[in-house]
C-alpha cells in the first residue's frame, strides 16, 4: 500500500498531499499535481523547505492541492515570476516550485516571465499549457495553435507562442516539455528541475476538458453533442477520464483529446544532446514542421550561475538576519554625516 511506503526522509506519499482539488474531473492539471507530489516524494524533499507559487487561473489554483505542509503564495495574474524573484533573494535556502498557465505566463505575464529567465532565477516553473484561459471560460491564449476553433466557433488567427523556444533564447537553463498524462516522463523531469539551480521551465501540455475544442471536436462524442443544449453547454461538464500515455524515448505517440482532436508527441531519444542552444532550437523547429510536439529535456545549461548567486548574498538567508547584522553601527552614520559636511 502506497500509504505505508516511506521515502529517505521517512515521509509517506500522503505527507505530500494538499487540499482536495476543485478542477474539472479529468483536467490535465490534476494529473500534473499528481506528478508534482510524486516527484517531491521520490526526491525526498522536506515540504517545509519548499515554497509554492502561482499566478491566477485554474492552473494557478493547483498549488493548494499539493504539499499542504509548504508555504504557498497564490499571487496576482501574471506576476508569479516577479514575486518568485523577490522570495528567492529574500530566502535562497527555500526551494520554489511555481505553477502557472499559458495565459498567466504567455499573455499578461510574458514580460516578467522573460526577465525572470534572463536573470536565471532559481525556480521550478511549470506552465500547465492548455491553449485556453480556463478559469475565464475558454478564450484563446497565446499558445493556442493558429487556426484552432473555440467553443462558439471563433477561429484563432495568431501563431502559437512556443514557451520552450522563448525559454532557450532568453536564458533559462533547464527547458523541458511533457504531457500531463505522461507521469513516467513528467515526474522525473520535475525531479531534475527541482535539483537544478536556476530557471527550470517545464512546458506541460495539459488538456482542458471543458474548453479545449478543436475542429476535431465535431467528430467526437456525437451523442453528448446532440443532447447538449447550445446556450448552456459550459454549464455542464461531462465527467472525463484523465488521458494517460506511456511511450518510449525516440518514438511518436498520437494522443486523442477529450473532444476527439489529435496531437502527436515525439519523445527525444537517448542520443539527443540538450546542451547546445542551436541544436535545441533546430529540434523544436523540426518537430513543429512535422506537426509534432517535442517532449523531454530539450535544453540544459549546467554552468550559468543562478540569480541569488550572482548577487553575492551571504550564506544566511536575508530573511534570517537580525538587527545586529542589518543595522550598521551608529559610528558609520557619524562618518557619513562628516562627509556630508563638506
Amino acid at each position: 500500500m502506497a500509504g505505508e511506503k516511506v521515502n529517505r526522509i521517512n515521509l509517506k506519499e500522503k505527507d505530500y498531499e494538499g487540499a482536495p482539488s476543485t478542477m474539472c474531473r479529468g483536467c490535465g492539471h490534476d494529473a500534473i499535481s499528481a506528478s508534482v507530489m510524486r516527484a517531491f516524494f521520490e526526491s525526498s524533499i522536506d515540504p517545509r523547505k519548499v515554497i509554492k507559487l502561482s499566478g491566477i487561473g485554474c492552473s494557478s489554483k493547483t498549488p493548494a492541492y499539493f504539499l499542504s505542509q509548504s508555504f504557498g503564495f497564490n499571487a496576482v495574474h501574471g506576476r508569479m515570476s516577479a514575486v518568485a524573484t523577490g522570495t528567492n533573494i529574500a530566502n535562497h535556502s527555500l526551494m520554489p516550485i511555481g505553477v502557472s498557465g499559458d495565459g498567466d505566463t504567455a499573455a499578461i505575464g510574458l514580460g516578467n516571465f522573460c526577465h525572470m529567465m534572463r536573470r536565471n532565477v532559481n525556480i521550478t516553473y511549470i506552465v500547465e499549457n492548455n491553449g485556453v484561459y480556463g478559469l475565464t471560460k475558454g478564450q484563446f491564449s497565446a499558445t493556442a495553435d493558429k487556426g484552432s476553433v473555440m467553443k462558439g466557433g471563433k477561429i484563432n488567427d495568431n501563431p502559437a507562442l512556443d514557451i520552450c523556444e522563448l525559454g532557450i533564447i532568453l536564458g533559462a537553463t533547464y527547458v523541458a516539455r511533457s504531457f500531463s498524462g505522461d507521469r513516467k516522463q513528467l515526474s522525473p523531469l520535475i525531479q531534475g528541475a527541482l535539483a537544478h539551480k536556476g530557471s527550470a521551465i517545464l512546458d506541460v501540455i495539459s488538456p482542458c476538458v471543458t474548453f479545449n475544442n478543436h475542429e476535431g471536436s465535431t467528430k467526437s462524442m456525437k451523442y453528448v453533442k446532440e443532447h447538449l443544449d447550445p446556450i448552456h453547454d459550459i454549464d455542464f461538464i461531462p465527467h472525463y477520464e484523465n488521458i494517460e500515455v506511456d511511450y518510449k524515448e525516440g518514438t511518436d505517440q498520437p494522443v486523442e483529446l477529450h473532444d476527439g482532436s489529435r496531437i502527436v508527441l515525439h519523445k527525444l531519444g537517448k542520443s539527443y544532446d540538450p546542451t547546445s542552444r542551436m541544436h535545441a532550437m533546430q529540434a523544436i523547429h523540426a518537430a513543429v514542421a512535422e506537426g509534432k510536439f517535442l517532449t523531454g529535456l530539450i535544453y540544459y545549461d549546467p554552468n550559468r550561475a543562478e540569480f541569488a548567486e550572482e548577487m553575492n548574498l551571504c550564506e544566511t538567508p536575508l530573511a534570517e538576519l537580525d538587527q545586529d547584522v542589518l543595522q550598521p553601527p551608529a559610528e558609520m552614520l557619524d562618518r557619513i554625516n562628516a562627509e556630508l559636511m563638506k
Partner: protein
Amino acid sequence: METPPINDLSISIATENGTGSASANNVLFKAIFKMGVPCSSKNMFPSNIQGLPTWYQIRASAEGYMARKDVIDVMVMFNDATAAKDIYRVRDGGIIIHDDSNPLASNLKRDGVQYFGVPANKLIQKIVPASPLRIKQRNMVYVGALAYLFGIDIETIKEVLQDTFGKKPAVIESNLVCIQAGFNHMKEKGYTQNIARLQTIPNGNKGKIITEGNTACALGAIFGGASVVSWYPITPSSSLAEAVEHYMPRLRKKDGKATYAIVQAEDEIAAASMIVGAGWAGVRAMTSTSGPGLSLMNESIGLAYFAEVPCVFFIIQRGGPSTGLPTRTQQADIQLMYYASHGDTRHLILIPHDMKSCFDMARRSFDFAERFQTPVFVMMDLDLGMNLWSSEPLKLEKEPFDRGKILTAEQIEQWEKQGKKFRRYFDFDGDGIPYRTLPGNPNRKAAYFTRGSGHDADARYSEDEKDYKETLDRLRKKFETARKYVPKPAVEKQEGVKTGIISFGSSYEPVREARDRLRASGLKTNHLLLRALPLTEETKEFLEAHEVIYLVEQNRDAQMASIVKDEWPELASKITSILVYDGLPLTTGEVVRQINQHRAGGRKGVQEWQEKKLIA
C-alpha cells in the same frame, strides 16, 4: 552710501544643461555654506540630458529661511536661449551678470537693473588649453565674478575645491584659474554693488550637513534594515535607489558578502511584485518610484493590502498627470497613495518634511509595515528629495526593530500547549492585526497559503459572505488601530489665536517663513504639521480650535483637504485651501499672497476666489 543688507541674497544662475554648470554652482553654494551663512539651493532642471535651459537658485538668509525666495536679486545670464525672459526675472534694482565677450544684444537690455559684464568666453580661450572641456570651465568664471561682487573670499573657495576634488589636483588647478580670472576681471573693472553682502559667520554652519531628501531616505532605509530593494529608474526617485546602491556596499557587508539584494527590475509592476514576494518571505523590502510607477503598482499594492504583506513604497512626487513634468515638483499623488488599488483600501502614509524626518521615517517605515502587515508609503516630492537642504546631522535612535507579530516554531508549540492554534488571519488580540509565520518555519503547523482572493481566518480559500465581510471589517479595524501608532502631527499653538495653518512635506519651510511674515503684518497663526495618514485626533482638535484654517498643498485639487473632509466634514468646511501647482518649489511669497487675498475677500470672498481659481 548706506550699508547693504548682510547675508540676505538670492542668486539665480541660468545655463544650459550638460555644459558643466552644476559643478560650478555646487562650488559656489558650498562656499557660501562654508562661510557659515545659512543657505539653500533649488535646482530647476529639464527633462533631457543636454542642451535645454536649467536654473540654479541659491538663497543666503541671515534669518535661516530655506524656502525658495520669491524675488531674484542677481541673475547670472549664461544661457542665450532664455536670456530674453531671464532679464525680467530679476527684481528692479537687481543685478544681471552676463558674458560680454560679445556685446549685449539690444533686446537683452532693460532699465532698473545693473549690468555687469564678464568676458568668460574670451578669458577661457586664454587660460584653458584647447579641449572639449573648455566650455565647462566657462562656468567657473561667474563663480569668481560673484565671489568678488558679494565678498566670498578665494580661500574659502579653495577649501571647497579641496573638499570636492581632493583626489584630482589637475581639476582643482584648472577650476581655480578660471575662478580667479572672473574675480580679477571684476576687480580690475572696479565693479561695485550695494544690494547685499555676504559675511562670514564664525561657526555659522558648524556641525551642519548638506544633503538631499533622497539620500537621507536611502540612509534611513539602510539603517532601518532594508534588505531587498527592487526598483525601476524614474526621475525624481532614481537617486533614492541609487543612493541605496551607493551606500549599501560600505554599510551592509558580512565577511565580503552582501546582507542586502538590490534588483533593477524590468518595470514597476515587477519591482512592486518582487518586494511583495520578499516581504512575504520575511525581509524588509522596499521600492522607490514616482507617479507613473505608482499608477502601475496599484494592483500589487492591493495584493499586499489584502494578503497582508509588509513592504515599503517611497513615492517621490513630480509634476503630473501622466508623464507631466518629470523634473518639477508637486504633491498630487496623495489620493492615489491613500486609496491605492481597487476595492475598499486605505493605506498608511508617512510624510517627512526635512532631512531628519526623511531619515527617521524611512527607518521607521519598516516597523510600521511589519507591525501592521501592510504596504506603507513614504510620501516625498522632488523639492524635498532632490534639492540640497542643510540640516543637523542625521541621528540614529537606538531602538529595536519592531518586527510585529511574527510567530516562531517554538512559540507555535507553546501556543499549542496552551491549547491555542495558529490561525494566520484570526484577530487574536482584537486590534485587527493577525499573527504571521515566515516561510521556512520548521513547525509543521506554521505553513499557510497566501492569496489575494477571498479567504477565511485560517487562510483557506473561501467565498463565504461572512468570511469575506469579517476580513474586510478586520482590515478596517487594523487601519483604525494604526491611528494610535502613526507619527502625530507637530502643533505650534498659542492660546487665543483663531487662524490656523496646516502644511506638510516640502511646504513646511515656506510656511514657517510665511507665518513670520504674516505675524509681522499683524496676523498671528497657529500651525499644524501633518506627518502621517491616517489622520489623528490632534488634527481634529486643531480644526475645532480655529475659525479659519488654511491648508497648504502643492496640487490643484486640494487632495489632502479632501481626505480631511472625508474624516470630519463639519469641521473641514472651515478649511480654505492654499493651492500651488506650477511645478516650482513653493515660495513663501505665494503662500502669503494667497492668504492675504482670502482675508481681503473674507470667508465668502475666499470661496469665490477658490471657485475662480479652480476654473480660472
